[in-house]
């Protein structure tokens, strides 16, 4: 295993050129947390360099330092061999660094064009800048397959498109080094593929790319070299061609990780959920669900695949009681109220539906609440949590502690606020709450979004365990891998409808991909 990186696979040019980026002895602490410890690493020009590591390992912090967003406590940065001070983002931009943050830094109610020129305007008047940017965007769009309508409001764009805007922003500022923090976390496979094609184009133009991701497959597919971070330190840098996913996983987590879900064939029982002709019309009078029907039995996992925005979210929300709809839904043979006073989430919970929402920050958790308060979220009126008129906070804390131990939430401190847990651990808190309610039906959306592989392994095991206890599980995920390995049946959604249903062992990603694009071979 080669741990140095002076010479890489980029035999042709990189030999005598200084590395595009070199970091020496970077350290950064947030109060008592040492986010980065004495980090040294370099990236050769014209390569794609991956960075992996558990949640909270310090990846984002390191990149933010490189981009001048945070100031390092110690260490220096060299760009193309030159020591460069990066006190702020302006300096990073002039040094040719562009960054796409995990949480996009876009002004939602601005147009794409306005977002692109923000901070890179020429002159005090907007008109000339906008005209110039419009031309430039057309050019970039052609060159890198980065098509976005410049006049659309960003809030109307899909995540994939928002990300393109972020990349366009960097390119518009003539970035030579592009940093992307978990860019595929929220992308559909098709969008991710598209992104990687863009990377190829950029690489061909001699640009350097640093990619942070939790997905080992991506690392293996497109990076030239990869660095592993653990607990604030850079523990290894290897050439991608000389490593394997298993090995990387072990470097990351410090133990062997099962990358495949191990499960026995399902033994479906009685029908739990019957959905017929479900329709949803949103505030803008757009029909989001166009007559969805499906059935789910006890002891099976039904995976809903689909490109984000094709109605999966609405389906979950309707079933969970967050949205009204028309049609019919029966739970254990009993008709559910879809529009009236009893169509709320609380009533659904009482009927035995648990829900792990797609968005843990805005829905699943109250970030300002402590862990124990989050454990009661949605169940605060449970008699077990109340003593007479008052809530039994002490008992709740004790129970939370136990749950945190069982679900390996780190750190297992019930009083810690949710916002202070890493993404993976936040997700585990939500799971601990919902799974242990012993529901008849578990609705679960994007269970492992932004979660590191150690945690993914754990979460997948829990979902399968629940199935084996005879519960019905409706899984929505944009990760085809996850759908394929967890589901007993797969339904593909497109444009508010179910395009078709497959068994995982009888299909492949290609066929699903076509269904997700609205093309049903079998039907034709």
């Amino acid at each position, binding site marked *: 295993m080669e741990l140095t990186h002076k010479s890489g696979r980029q035999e042709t040019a990189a030999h005598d050129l200084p590395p595009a980026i070199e970091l020496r002895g970077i350290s950064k602490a947030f*109060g*008592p947390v040492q986010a980065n410890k004495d980090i040294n690493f370099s990236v050769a020009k014209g390569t794609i360099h991956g960075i992996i590591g558990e949640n909270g390992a310090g990846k984002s912090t390191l990149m933010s330092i490189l981009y001048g967003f945070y100031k390092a406590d110690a260490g220096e940065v060299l760009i193309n061999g030159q020591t460069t001070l990066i006190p702020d983002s302006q300096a990073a931009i002039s040094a040719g660094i562009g960054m796409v943050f995990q949480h996009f830094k876009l002004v939602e109610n601005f147009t794409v064009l306005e977002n692109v020129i923000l901070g890179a305007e020429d002159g005090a008047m907007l008109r000339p800048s906008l005209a110039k940017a419009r031309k430039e965007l057309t050019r970039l769009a052609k060159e890198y397959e980065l098509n976005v309508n410049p006049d659309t409001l960003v809030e109307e764009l899909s995540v994939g498109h928002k990300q393109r805007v972020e990349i366009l922003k960097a390119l518009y500022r003539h970035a030579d080094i592009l940093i992307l923090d978990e860019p595929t976390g929220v992308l559909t496979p098709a969008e991710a593929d598209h992104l990687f094609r863009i990377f190829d184009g950029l690489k061909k133009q001699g640009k350097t790319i640093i990619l942070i991701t939790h997905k080992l497959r991506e690392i293996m597919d497109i990076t030239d070299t990869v660095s592993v971070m653990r607990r604030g330190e850079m523990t290894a840098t290897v050439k991608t061609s000389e490593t394997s996913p298993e090995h990387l996983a072990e470097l990351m987590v410090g133990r062997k990780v099962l990358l495949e879900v191990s499960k026995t064939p399902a033994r479906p029982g009685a029908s739990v959920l019957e959905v017929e002709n479900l329709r949803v019309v949103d505030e803008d009078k757009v029909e989001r669900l166009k007559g969805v029907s499906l059935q789910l039995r006890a002891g099976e996992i039904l995976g809903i695949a689909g490109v984000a925005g094709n109605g999966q979210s609405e389906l979950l929300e309707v079933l*969970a*009681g*967050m949205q009204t709809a028309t049609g019919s839904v029966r739970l254990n043979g009993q008709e559910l109220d879809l529009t009236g006073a009893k169509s*709320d*989430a*609380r*009533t*659904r*919970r009482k009927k035995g539906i648990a*829900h792990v*929402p797609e*968005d843990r920050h*805005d*829905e*699943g*958790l*109250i*970030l*300002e*609440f402590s862990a124990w*308060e989050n454990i*009661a*979220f*949605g169940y*605060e*009126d449970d008699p077990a949590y*109340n003593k007479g*008129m*008052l*809530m039994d*906070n002490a008992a709740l804390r004790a129970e939370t502690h136990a749950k945190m131990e069982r679900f390996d939430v780190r750190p297992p401190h019930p009083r810690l606020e949710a916002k202070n847990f890493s993404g993976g651990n936040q997700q585990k808190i939500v799971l601990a709450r919902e799974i242990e309610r012993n529901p008849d039906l578990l609705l679960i959306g994007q269970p492992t979004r932004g979660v590191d592989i150690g945690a993914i392994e754990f979460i997948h095991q829990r979902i399968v365990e629940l199935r084996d206890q005879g519960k019905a599980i409706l899984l929505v995920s944009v990760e085809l891998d996850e759908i394929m390995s967890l589901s007993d049946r797969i339904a593909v959604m497109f444009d508010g409808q179910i395009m078709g249903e497959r068994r995982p062992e009888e299909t492949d990603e290609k066929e699903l991909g076509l269904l997700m694009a609205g093309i049903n071979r079998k039907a034709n």
Partner: protein
Amino acid sequence: MQKMPKWADVALIPLINILIAFTLSGLIIWAIGGDPFRALKTMVTGSFGSTNGWGYTLYYTTNFIFTGLAVATAYQARLFNIGGEGQAMLGGLGVALVALSIDWPHWAIALPAAAIGGAAFGAFWAVIPAYLQAKRGSHIVITTIMFNFIASALVGYLLLNFLKVPGNMSTESAGFPAGTNLPTFSDMLAPFGITFAKNAPANISFLVALACAFGYWLLIWHTKLGYQIRAFGQSETGAIYAGINPVRIVVITMVISGALAGMMALNNVMGEAERLIDNAVEGAGFIGIAVALMGRNHPVGIVLAALLFGFLFQGGSELSLWEGIPRELVVVIQGLVILLTGALDNMVRGPVERLFLMLHKGEA
């Protein structure tokens, strides 16, 4: 793990801030030709130096606890209730109507009845903006501001045309029957052998205010409803996920908030004036905003902040009484205290934190 010991956070920093505020105020007093030290002494002895001073300080404190709690309750649901002024005004009307309705035999019966009256009227005045916010999206900040103006017109009209005693110059209602006169501190403490100034206005509603503060604490942190209010305040989408009905929470929260503001009338209308006068709230609704914000929406903080403002009010009136310092100077002092303890908090916090970090490193 912590940057600073807790005592420094909750006690030291506010203390330094108040010190700075007083230093600045002292400079101003000095600049207009007064003696800052004498002024401070007058303020402190005037408000804490005698039972009479205490009686006034605690009387104002009581007002501010009620309005502070009202603002804080709404704030837990991220509703900014600027309407405490109007709600307290209506509360006064409610208390007056109850007090004047029958010849109450004893205050112990009249008090709960008046509390219900004040709370109901205050809540009524809050529930309209709440409903409009929840159902129609009308911004509660505007509607509550408007309701302050409307309340003042309404109460003025009713006083003038229906409640005023004919022949009386002042727009005020008839005096309340003796059976509604609340025991003052002097009445309350006499059985314990403690003599308290007989004429100071502090009365039993101070205890009601403290009980409300305790109730607020229970409600917000120890009941399902409080939990839901806070959850809704933190995240509206989260509330829908959890099955918390936003309309219901907004309305209920504002009902409680308005009721608390309305109950202020127990103190100023029933306890002190013993009649309803025009503009009886005298800005306490607005002070409540400062009290809640400075008290960080925590009952202990609110009671302490209310006491601080009670002190400023009473000490300030002593200042203008005996030192010839214009009463507006007290408003300046209040402004400085709010600014420093409330808004410029971090100015002091930063250096103090660094100091503790240094001390800590020195130890390690």
